[in-house]
């Protein structure tokens, strides 16, 4: 319980209850712990019986039971794990490169107004170019291997991060910067001591968007020219009319995205703790 919360239910004690009741309290205080699985079960059941009732064909929308079956089949296949590994690699590498480049360029750009005004139009213009259309060129330039997919993932996760980094570095409080300036801080020091911490909420938003798009980028890259990876598997299952198998791959991709999302949120709670603690709860 944060110390600055606004009371909107009978005030609770600030002291935690003795250890014994902890576990039970968790479920009451964090209802998502049972809500998420409940919603999941409800959705899956509705999907399963809804498609049966409405007689939706499996090639339009396969039923969860069919997807699970396909998933089991996939998971038992060592090839599948190598596809998974390839895509994870591409997405992660692309994410790190894209997001890293965005942080570097965003930092550079936002330090010097002229640079921002000069470069931003080109970046936006480049971003609006559909990467999928350029993909053949990508493949020409970066080859058929990992690189072109990594580039794809990097390019697509770059932009959301860049915009958020620039906006975030701008959001620093002028008084705090003045304070540091008086004490003789260099630009680098101001950046490290104020701008970066102030930008963290933006940066984490950018990371959250970035990782999702990095996975998408890797998959789309694989659509265009790959012989392995989950994107390739998607094409393959689709080509073979194995729509349930295709959905199984989609499920795996979703789980990848979810895991990455949770890692990022965890990191955020560690690194931007002060924001959590001065948060107003219940207001």
């Amino acid at each position: 319980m944060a110390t600055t919360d606004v009371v909107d239910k009978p005030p609770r004690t600030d002291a935690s209850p003795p250890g014994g009741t902890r576990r039970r309290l968790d479920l009451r205080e964090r209802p998502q712990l049972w809500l998420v699985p409940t919603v999941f079960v409800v959705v899956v059941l509705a999907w399963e019986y809804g498609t049966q009732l409405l007689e939706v064909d499996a090639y339009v929308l396969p039923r969860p039971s069919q997807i699970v079956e396909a998933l089991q089949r996939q998971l038992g296949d060592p090839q599948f794990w190598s596809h998974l590994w390839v895509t994870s690699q591409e997405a992660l590498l692309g994410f790190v490169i894209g997001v890293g480049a965005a942080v570097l360029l965003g930092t550079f750009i936002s330090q010097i107004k002229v640079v921002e005004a000069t470069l931003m139009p080109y970046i936006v213009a480049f971003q609006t170019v559909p990467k999928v259309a350029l993909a053949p060129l990508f493949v020409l330039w970066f080859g058929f291997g990992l690189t072109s997919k990594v580039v794809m993932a990097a390019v697509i996760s770059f932009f959301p991060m860049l915009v958020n980094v620039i906006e975030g570095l701008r959001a620093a409080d002028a008084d705090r910067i003045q304070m540091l300036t008086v004490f003789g801080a260099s630009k680098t020091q101001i950046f490290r001591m104020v701008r970066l911490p102030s930008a963290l909420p933006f940066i984490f938003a950018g990371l959250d968007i970035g990782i999702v798009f990095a996975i998408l980028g890797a998959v789309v890259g694989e659509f265009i020219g790959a012989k392995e990876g989950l994107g390739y598997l998607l094409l393959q299952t689709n080509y073979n009319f194995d729509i349930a198998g295709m959905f199984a791959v989609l499920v795996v991709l979703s789980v990848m995205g979810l895991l990455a999302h949770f890692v990022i949120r965890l990191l955020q709670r560690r690194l931007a703790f002060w924001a959590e603690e001065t948060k107003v709860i219940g207001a």
Partner: protein
Amino acid sequence: GGSGSDESSGAEGAPAELTFAIASAVIGPKEEVAMFAVAKELGYFAEEKLTVETINTDGSVAALQAVASGSADVTAADSGSILGAVEKNVPVKAIGGLVQNWPWVMAVKPDSTLTGGADLRGKKIGVISLASGSAPYARAYVAAAGLDPAKDVELLPVGVGAQAAAALNDGQVDVLALYTQAYAVIENSGTTLKYLDNPDAFDGIRSLSFAVGARDLDDKKDVHTRFLRAAYKAMLFSANNPEAAMRIGYQVFPQILAGKSADEQLANDVRSLQAWLKTATPASGEPKDFADWGAITEAEWTKTQAYTKEAGQITGDVALADVWEPGLLAGANDFDKAAVLDKAANYTK
């Protein structure tokens, strides 16, 4: 669904609306010109009291999905994909053939020393994508020469068109495995190619065939027959006057030009269309004699099925009756050939 098909069209000869799914995301000098545009512009659809629209789908699988789900009524899809769909209980059925000669072929640079499958050991083969018809073709091609496609060659996805040409020119691949009409487009851009002969094994494997929804096929036999008839009339016309067909194609699908002028493009596009027409008409004989449109023999189906199975697109055998409904072809071929030929000979505009 995007189909405006008239459900009450059971009555013979009643007016009907149909949606034709083009099994490719782009419109080019192929079936949509030779068959659809011509049939529409020359009134062959109108004669059958049909109003036909097109949609573009991203390949044969998507086109079959569209037909099965009712988003479209008819498509010309890869026969292997039709087999695959039927095996996965997707309710579609082939009702007539379209591309009858094996359209896939291997191409190398004109100065290449490669002459056949046996030379491809250790080479890189450019395919459209690993999940497209060109990959199984490439594998089958090298397998026919006694090589192990999994070990002896490497398949690389290069797409069609510019990037495929670039991959070959840059030496990223040693050989391309594309369909003839795609080569025509590449050659139009000034790249010259040398083609390797297909072994006889590929003779008789069917490519594009007309497919419709299987569930209401019985109710719609009449409509589909009329559609096929219009389509085959148009094919006959196009085979006899490709240039006229191409001009008609520009009228119906101005987007083919993508901003360029028709006169500038015509020669190239006619060449492409001819390349396609060659695969869709008998290998020998005079265009004016072409008859018996859409027939697929049982032997051809067997061969196609064997090939599809080897490609991994189907895992078992599909009963011919489940995939093939030849009963419409008699009606479809019942038209006045002379009138079409006359029109083709005297077409002006």
